[in-house]
């Protein structure tokens, strides 16, 4: 059986599945239940500085969007950092870590952008026996209006500065949590590295409004007829998170910087994808909030089965395996030619491929009176839309044309050679062939 144990910046956990800093990790009761269910670690919900705790709204904190059968696809929240006293959280963290020494307990922190504030809190967190800290520079709502959270994460100089303060004031590993509400995710990652951070974690939530109440015209979630943007997470954000993780993993300036992958991890497969794109472990929130802590059992069994089947014997061995394959568009092989293929046995004749291709693409699928759908290779540009809209997985696939075969659409013989845009004759910037 595959070894799922994880060592992330020296923090050990029996598996790479951590619960992200969020409502599920706000208190001892939940965290104990999570550990009993099998979670490898938690990032405790963000602590603020000493003093009166922050307050939350007393109306809805979450909004959502759904897919078919009301499957939750995206969740938005306007909850702030912990609203419980600092001492209570610290006491509970200490108790949990004492009882679960093999699990990772990382503490998320957000205090004002002054060194004194960080200096004050770090020893107290360290005293709990926690394994590390995560700097919450990502929260996009509420706290950012007070100069914290994403307000820090959007300014690379601040990230570097605070990371440096933390490294100077604690022996615990420092993970910087990044906000995706920024143009180029590599900039804050580079700043975190420059400040001496041990790792980055991403993504935090994305600024969002989940909907509008069409009777009251209030944004959702609605607080007395008004709404404020919240932070969006869940399956819908996974592709955005994957790209940002990959961008950092393949950036020469941050290459090798450990990454804790966050954003829509719902199944073992999602987790494996984050690992492959360079994440050393993953953090989960929405899936647990949707289905409860038990989902970790599927994540563990699924990842384990896949690793066994593919001969991957450690988590570390998977990390970054897809990173070399992430490239820029200009380097994609233009001599790679595929055509859609419809498995007539699997086809249930819904005709969605036809509608999609006929109405919105390249008129490359024909429909017979008895509802047989066939790809016309001379029109098919291999856009993949038919694959994407087909309700039967595996019914439509993309088949590569072998070198030497003539592509009926272009009339050109498929070449075995790799050729990309940088050398294409239509590219005015192309280097002269020689």
């Amino acid at each position, binding site marked *: 059986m595959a070894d799922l144990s994880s060592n992330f910046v020296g923090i050990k956990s029996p598996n790479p599945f951590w619960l992200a800093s969020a409502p599920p990790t706000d208190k001892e009761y939940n965290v104990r239940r999570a550990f009993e269910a099998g979670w490898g670690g938690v990032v405790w919900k963000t602590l603020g500085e000493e003093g009166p705790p922050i307050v939350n709204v007393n109306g809805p904190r979450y909004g959502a969007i759904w897919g078919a*059968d*009301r499957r939750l696809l995206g969740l938005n929240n306007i909850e702030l950092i912990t609203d419980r006293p600092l001492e209570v959280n610290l006491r509970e963290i200490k108790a949990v870590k004492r009882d679960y020494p093999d699990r990772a307990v990382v503490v998320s922190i957000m205090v004002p952008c002054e060194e004194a504030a960080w200096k004050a809190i770090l020893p107290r967190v360290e005293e709990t026996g926690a394994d590390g800290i995560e700097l919450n520079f990502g929260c996009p709502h509420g706290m950012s209006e007070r100069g914290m959270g994403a307000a820090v994460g959007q300014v690379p100089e601040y990230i570097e500065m605070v990371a440096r303060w933390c490294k100077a004031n604690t022996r615990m590993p420092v993970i910087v949590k990044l906000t995706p509400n920024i143009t180029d995710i590599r900039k804050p990652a580079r700043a975190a590295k420059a400040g001496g951070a041990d790792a980055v974690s991403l993504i935090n939530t994305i600024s969002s409004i989940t909907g509008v109440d069409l009777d009251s015209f209030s944004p959702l979630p609605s607080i007395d007829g008004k709404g404020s943007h919240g932070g969006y997470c869940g399956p819908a954000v996974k592709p955005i998170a994957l790209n940002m993780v990959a961008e950092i993993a393949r950036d020469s300036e941050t290459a090798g910087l450990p990454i804790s992958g966050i954003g829509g991890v719902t199944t073992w497969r999602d987790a494996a994808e984050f690992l492959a794109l360079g994440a050393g472990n993953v953090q989960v929130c929405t899936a647990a909030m949707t289905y409860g802590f038990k989902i970790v059992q599927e994540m563990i069994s699924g990842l384990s089965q896949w690793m066994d089947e593919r001969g991957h014997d450690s988590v570390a061995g998977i990390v970054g395996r897809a990173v070399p394959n992430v490239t820029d568009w200009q380097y994609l092989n233009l001599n790679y030619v595929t055509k859609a293929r419809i498995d007539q046995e699997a086809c*249930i004749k*819904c*005709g969605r491929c036809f509608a999609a291709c006929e109405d919105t693409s390249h008129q490359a699928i024909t429909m017979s009176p008895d509802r047989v759908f066939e790809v016309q290779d001379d029109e098919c540009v291999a856009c993949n839309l038919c694959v994407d809209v087909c309700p039967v997985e595996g019914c439509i696939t993309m088949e590569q044309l072998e070198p030497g075969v003539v592509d009926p659409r272009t009339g050109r013989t498929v070449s075995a050679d790799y050729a990309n845009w940088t050398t294409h004759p239509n590219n005015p910037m192309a280097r002269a062939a020689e």
Partner: protein
Amino acid sequence: MANSQMTRGIVSGRLPAETIARNFSDLHAPLDAHEAAVASDRCYFCHDAPCMTACPTSIDIPLFIRQIQTGTPEAAARTIFEQNILGGMCARVCPTETLCEEVCVREVAEGKPVEIGRLQRFATDTLMAQGAHPFARGASTGKRVAVVGGGPAGLSCAHRLAMKGHDVVVYDAGPKAGGLNEFGIASYKSVGGFAQAEVEWLLQIGGIDVRLGEALGSGLTLEALRKDFDAVFLGIGLAGVNALRAEGEDRGGVRDAVDFIAELRQSKDLTTLPIGRNVVVIGGGMTAVDAAVQSKLLGAENVTIVYRRGRERMGASEFEQDLAASKGVRILYNAMPVAVHDGEIELEYTVETAGSLKGTGERFRLAADQVFKAIGQVLAGAPSGVRIEGGKISVSGDGRTSVDGVWAGGDCASGGDDLTVTAVAEGRDAAEDIHRALIG
């Protein structure tokens, strides 16, 4: 109440009132909003959808399901009613398992179709419960059309004509309009007086005058109607029944199934409706199943459907046959009646070779204090001068008969398949043709 299922003869009150009430409740309970949301999510919104093609009224099923899915069942109902003004009844009585749901791609893929019939009922019930009628009558054309027969074909025709602004008079022989919707459909498919409620709702369009107790041959003649109106539509159904041609057919206890069903539908108190202890239904169509199942639900101890051919030839759908079986009705295939005796029916096994049916000579008897004949209805009372073909009024295209200015549709006309939904389609299409003929 002294009677039970075992009481000999034909008596009422075989079952307690509560049991009868439960037996005759909705066959398919209506979907609630949550169930409708779950069911509508399963629709793939197929291109040129097979369900739509299979629907005799060509309802845009993917569109109406999407409208339910997006929280606008009223818009969904409008989509349905634009094609089929009796979409509420059709949602209840259509054999969807042999029409839209049979060809649903999810039936093909998973053996579990989208529940189109129940979703249609959800939409139509939602709109009808609001009491409003979704269509307005067009500006008056001054043209007058007579519709003979207030069943599904006639009502559908009348409504479409009224929409176009014509003045319509519907003549119906019965004491109520609705035709087979009111008198001929199994009670558990149309509970709560739905048929009459639907007629009243349909008539809200205005411009339709319903005259009851008037029929061709009793007060009406085609000649007079042609003289008084600009066009005539015949939707007179099949008023006659086939004879059993078995000895003893005239004995007491032998009865037409359609009469029994009509009496049952009109009964105010089913505990007073007499039914035999041993009931035999002769026939293989929907009427046979409706009569047999309802006999069982009234408390008959033994109910047997006797059909002269094999199962695959039976007119009732597989769903209907299974329904009968689940209610405890026995279906006997390849047997035909020979004679009705006192308390018994004598039957003979049959064999079908090269399409022709004959007795094997082997005879047997079943206890039968009541025998229902459900061996098909026939055209009766068609006006002379109208060409008849294969026992039905001959029509071409959009229901034109051999007589100028006279259209026909529904069960009485050639070409249909004796379904409510087909009658609705034919009535609608004839109305469109009448409109073209009158307005040009």
